[in-house]
């Protein structure tokens, strides 16, 4: 008799404990739902300030495959006009100067590592006479990294001084230069001939090589 009472008491206590834990789970789920509703209720941010109007004249370069040689060497890159951070128009066109165009994504850790290097190289006079360096901010996405958004603030904080334009929301400049990864460097001759493209961190040695390539096109 007493064994049965003890057993039924134990069963009752188990039942109670089960209910408490399930209630704990419901409270946990409730907390998650409340957080979801609270976050969803936050006002939207105008993300258009990080993009600009872009026009592309000419044929897009074919996409650069990772690890493969650039299939577009010798082709003429399109003329690209975009908006700088100050809202002014800037054109990357055949103007008699060779160019290095670097496409940067603010959220990309490789771009974040490369930008200070490029800036210090420019400041130390690494860029040869007759060669211009342009930046393009591409694939801007505040959700991916709010700390470096908008990209103009990020570049400003890195002391970036090279003329830079913003890609549009349709990624027209990404397509124009056939970019498949960030950062991407595009080296253009004085007549906008594509001398070569490379994707990834290249460091100071790589920058020197690109500068030599660009400067070489001025001599020929």
């Amino acid at each position, binding site marked *: 008799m007493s064994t049965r009472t003890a057993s039924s008491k134990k069963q009752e206590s*188990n039942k109670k*404990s*089960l209910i408490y*834990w399930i209630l*704990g*789970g419901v409270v*946990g*789920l409730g*907390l*998650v*739902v409340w*957080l*979801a509703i*609270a*976050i*969803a*209720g*936050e006002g939207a941010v105008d993300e258009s300030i990080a993009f600009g109007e872009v026009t592309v004249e000419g044929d897009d370069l074919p996409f650069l495959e*990772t*690890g493969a040689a650039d299939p577009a060497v010798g082709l003429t890159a399109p003329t690209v006009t975009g908006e700088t951070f100050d809202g002014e128009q800037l054109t990357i066109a055949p103007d008699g100067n060779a160019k290095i165009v670097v496409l940067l*994504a603010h*959220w*990309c*850790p*490789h*771009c974040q*590592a490369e930008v200070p290097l490029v800036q210090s190289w420019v400041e130390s006079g690494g860029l040869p006479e007759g060669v211009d360096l342009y930046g393009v901010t591409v*694939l801007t996405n505040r*959700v*991916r*990294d*709010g*700390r470096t958004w908008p990209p103009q603030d990020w570049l400003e904080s890195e002391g970036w001084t090279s003329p830079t334009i913003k890609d549009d929301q349709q990624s027209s400049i*990404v397509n124009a230069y056939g*970019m*498949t*990864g*960030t*950062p*991407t460097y595009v080296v253009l001759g004085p007549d906008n001939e594509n001398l070569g493209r490379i*994707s*990834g*961190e290249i460091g100071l040695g790589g920058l020197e090589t690109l500068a030599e390539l660009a400067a070489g096109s001025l001599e020929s």
Partner: protein
Amino acid sequence: MSVFFYSTLVSLLALVALAAAAGLLIYRLVRGPEASNLLGVRAIWLAWLVALVATGGSLIYSEVVHFTPCRLCWYQRIAMYPMAIVLLVGAIRRDFQTKFYALPLALIGLGISIYHYLLQRFPNLEATSSCDPNNPCSLVLVDIFNFISIPFMAGSGFIVIAVLLGFYVNKNSIEQETRVQ
């Protein structure tokens, strides 16, 4: 509520979970096998709560904040989400074998979290030194206190679940083990 506030809240939870796991491990080292008596069946219920909140928290990031999970995030989800169900069933049935199903998931998930965290801190661990425009795993979507990112939070969840499951032991087997010692 801002995403930053939410992330800070979840980060604090992760730190509390890690501290609790460390405390439990130290207690186990000091007390030996009988340390498992500390939590009893509560261990599996707590592990379930951790898995439930981790699952919900991860769904908030993807469905409400609109972070797109990368490949490694998906692998961690594959390890975490089933535990929210498996541990509940195991807890209701008081099945001490449950840990043999859940523990491998927690340990595999932890391994992936560690690799993902390292990849975020050292992006050059990847074969390529450029970012895939679609959704690279090296992307740091959340960075609280300069060291807590999403894989860190997931890893903390896996650790605390694994430790709690280690504490979910049948009382009879503890008594046997203590007697043998």
